[in-house]
């Protein structure tokens, strides 16, 4: 671990000032400290933001408001989460372990780094770690990698579970920075790797996530998060799907769908949503719609199974959300 300084920010304003001067925010530290110990991350100044008043979880009318420093475990079981957007709680509980969920903040969860094993190996090329050095995974071990949104430079998936649910629910995030405040969809936080896989998100220098807003949705209780993995717990998703559906009799009026483990970022499936509109909630229909999710998929040597697993996971998540199986 490389020596660093850490100072506690007494106010949001001062935190942003310190970050604009080159400091890095630290909240739960469950990703950052881990990566610092392996010298993958090498910040020299850390700004501890845990004292900032950003731990709130509350309802504003039909909307769920989550402070960036609320802990995963608190958000998961909060009555407003359960009432307004239970799928967020489900996605959170499926992530990490109880110990990590007690530490990890919501803002930090959205910004966690990829789990590609080569990203953590200083002696292996990685375009995300050292731009232009090459990608070790594309010709190496890529069992867990993405099949959508990949480039020749990077195929790592974004590991967050709750981000998938937030993208499906069209959540927005409020950020504050040296240039002031702005609000944008969580989905737009993430970049595709393209030729610049080292750039993962769209935050400007010094910007701090302060709050997540999940807009109310009349049918938000008809939602499920299905995470598929070889181990029953404490494993990143091979494929995960968040499905929310509005049913009229047996007919899908509207659907929201996002998947994890499949794309290089939390992946909204608008084409599948469109294909489901007005269709009956039954296996054959769902399968036909889910199939379109893998159009254009680019599997690698070790992750072809995801081309099969992704549509199946979507079908199951929709069935679970629709309570038909």
């Amino acid at each position: 671990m490389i020596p660093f300084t850490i100072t506690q920010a007494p106010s949001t304003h001062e935190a942003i000032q310190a970050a604009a001067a080159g400091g890095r925010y630290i909240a739960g530290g469950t990703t950052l400290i881990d990566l610092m110990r392996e010298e993958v991350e090498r910040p020299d100044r850390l700004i501890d933001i845990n004292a900032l008043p950003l731990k709130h979880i509350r309802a504003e009318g039909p909307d769920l408001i989550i402070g960036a420093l609320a802990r995963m475990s608190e958000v998961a079981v909060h009555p407003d989460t359960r009432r307004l957007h239970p799928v967020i709680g489900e996605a959170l509980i499926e992530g990490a372990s109880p110990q990590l969920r007690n530490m990890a903040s919501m803002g930090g969860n959205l910004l966690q780094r990829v789990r590609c094993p080569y990203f953590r190996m200083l002696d292996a090329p990685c375009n995300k770690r050292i731009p232009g050095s090459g990608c070790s995974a594309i010709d190496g071990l890529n069992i867990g990698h993405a099949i959508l949104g990949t480039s020749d430079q990077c195929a790592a998936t974004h590991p967050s579970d709750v981000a998938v649910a937030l993208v499906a629910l069209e959540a927005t995030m409020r950020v504050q920075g040296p240039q002031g405040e702005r609000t944008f969809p969580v989905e737009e936080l993430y970049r595709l790797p393209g030729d610049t896989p080292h750039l993962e998100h769209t935050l400007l220098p010094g910007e701090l996530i302060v709050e997540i807003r999940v807009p109310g949705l009349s049918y938000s209780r008809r939602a499920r998060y299905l995470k598929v993995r070889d181990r029953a717990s404490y494993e990143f998703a091979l494929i995960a799907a968040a499905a929310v559906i509005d049913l009229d009799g047996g007919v899908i009026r509207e659907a929201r769908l996002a998947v994890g483990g499949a794309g290089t970022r939390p992946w909204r499936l608008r084409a599948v949503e469109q294909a489901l509109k007005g269709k009956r909630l039954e296996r054959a229909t769902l399968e036909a719609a889910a199939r379109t999710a893998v159009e254009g998929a680019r599997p690698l040597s070790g992750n072809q199974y995801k081309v099969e697993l992704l549509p199946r996971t979507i079908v199951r998540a929709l069935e679970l959300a629709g309570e038909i199986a």
Partner: protein
Amino acid sequence: MTMNVIGKPVARVDGRDKVTGRALYAAEFNQSNQAYAVIVNATVGLGRITGIDQAAVAKMPGVLSVLSHLNAPKLAYRPHKGSIDPKTGERLHVLQDEAVRFHGQPVALIVAETLDSAERAAAALRITYEAQRPIIDIADPDARAIVPESGRDHTRGDAEAAFANAPVNLKASYDIARENHNPMEPHATVAVWKGDKLTLWSKSQYVVNEQAEIAAIFGIPLENVQVICPFIGGAFGTSLRTWSHVTLAAMAARVTQRPVKLALTRKQMFFTTGHRPRTLQHVAIGATQDGKLTSLIHEGTGETSRYEQFSEALVASSSYLVSCPNVTTRYRLAALDTGTPVFMRGPGEASGVFALESALDELSYKLNIDPIELRRRNEPKLDEGVNKPFSSRSLIRCYDVGAERFQWLNRMPQPRSMLDGRLRIGIGVASATYPAYQAQSSARVRLLASGIAEVEVAASDMGPGTYTSMTQVAAETLGLPIDKVRFSLGRSDFPPAPSHGGSWTMASVGSAIRAACISVLEEAKKRPSTDRPLEATATTQRDAGVAGRFSMHAFGAVFAEVAIDPDVGTIRVRRALGVYGAGRIINPLLATSQCTGGMIGGIGMALMERTVLDRRDGRPVNAHMADYLMPVNLDTPKIEVQFVDEVDPHVNPLGVKGLGEIALVGMAPAIANAVFHATGKRIRRLPILLEDMLHA
């Protein structure tokens, strides 16, 4: 002898020390003025070092020494092969030359005032290599096939001819992934030199061997080395051998004239501390229509390194587990550019029995015979491999007891016939076996005037409860209550014990303690009143006559039920039962715990564990606890263990056969057989993953 302590569920005598943190593990023996060593590992898979910029990091803050083949002391490396070391080949000589034999080989060592300083310097050290592409795949046609000098081939009858003439036959191949042991406690050594005398607080399953190995490597008298290891946080075989990090800790302490601590990182535990070798196996079985075996051919190849021949009993159990007149077994090695493997729980048998028991299961469906009935029809009356009677064998009783408890008869025989809602349910079964070994061991007992008995052996306790069970043996033999016995282990200056592996600790160490206790009691009879302590030392080994007359093995029947999601392919074990005939059970509480752990290890082998190597440079890619999967609580919902009463008057005076290894054997095939029963799909490669189920 009164029977009031042996066989009782005595709680761990060291349990309180463990849960309160008073039990100290190797890395916790901090010394004053202690320095820290960190190993730098090769980043290429084969080749040689062309340059090391030692000077640049030697100047870094806190750095005391930077060692590599350029400046490390030339060590004696006198010949020494302990019972665990491969008989053929020569151990890795560390920092003695420029050659890189495998990815992760130690190539430099940093010693610094603090761990942080040492880690920083290790990360900063620039090393250049001339690299070649390593051969790391056992299936690589360029991998050199070796007939191991340990020679384990067996032939009786004419298996090839019998196979060709068999009314029913099948052939199948099996591929089991490399596994790493991954105990909770990492390898660690604290080394202190005082003049020519070296003390090592070091994680070891074999302290007297570590003493001998380090004495040989440094070329110093045996008595100059003392190895101490009172507690082990799990090992599963990885601490049987004395690996290069122990040498490096001692080297660092000698060079810096400081006490030095060296602990491996989790990632480093995938490099140089052994692994369960990947194996490829072929099984051919011929049988009559009513399920009697007429031919069995079992061939297996295991990984080894290029510099040592590691061999294990991969195919050995096929010579005695089932009755068959025509049997051929062949064992081969493939020499790869990798570190030398080492025994991992259930070594050999766990892999070999997977192949045999998968094939027998397959045969049972082919013949439409109940899998348990098939085993019954092929139950041998004696060990046909050596033509000797078994000292005891309770396999069929284990099946009977297990079938009853697991409600085997409620199972629908046809594959794909059981459902629970959407989930496909499968129930499978397999045999387990492991030899009942006994090795030479010594023990010392001292009766103090205060009424306390002190018992000392250089044994180990990696978790099975050696502290407790040996205390029971001594208490029982001496006729004392448990709390009057003080049992100590884990010091190389105690009377020697064999390695703590192979399920022989109770048979070996327990027998020695029993003999020493009997001897001290005789002494007491001669000197009924004395203020001085009475002391006796005994050394025991298996009676050669008995060993020549009997075949000695433990047997078990393992049952598993799996639920498979037909859509997304996830496989979950719902319940499992292991029934074992393993002689006398000294402590049913410990024994149940030990078997539960072994069965969970078997679940890992069946469904999760695999060390994945990058074919380009031999790098273990998933050397991380998030990526190398092992079962967690949700993966092990209901594990049950039962022992059948088995009195074996031949194995040893205690009548024990050992449990640690057999508990992992049999679980993986029971699960694979359950997966077949659930889906109709036979998976012959471990681990079985959800992607294997997507078209099931």
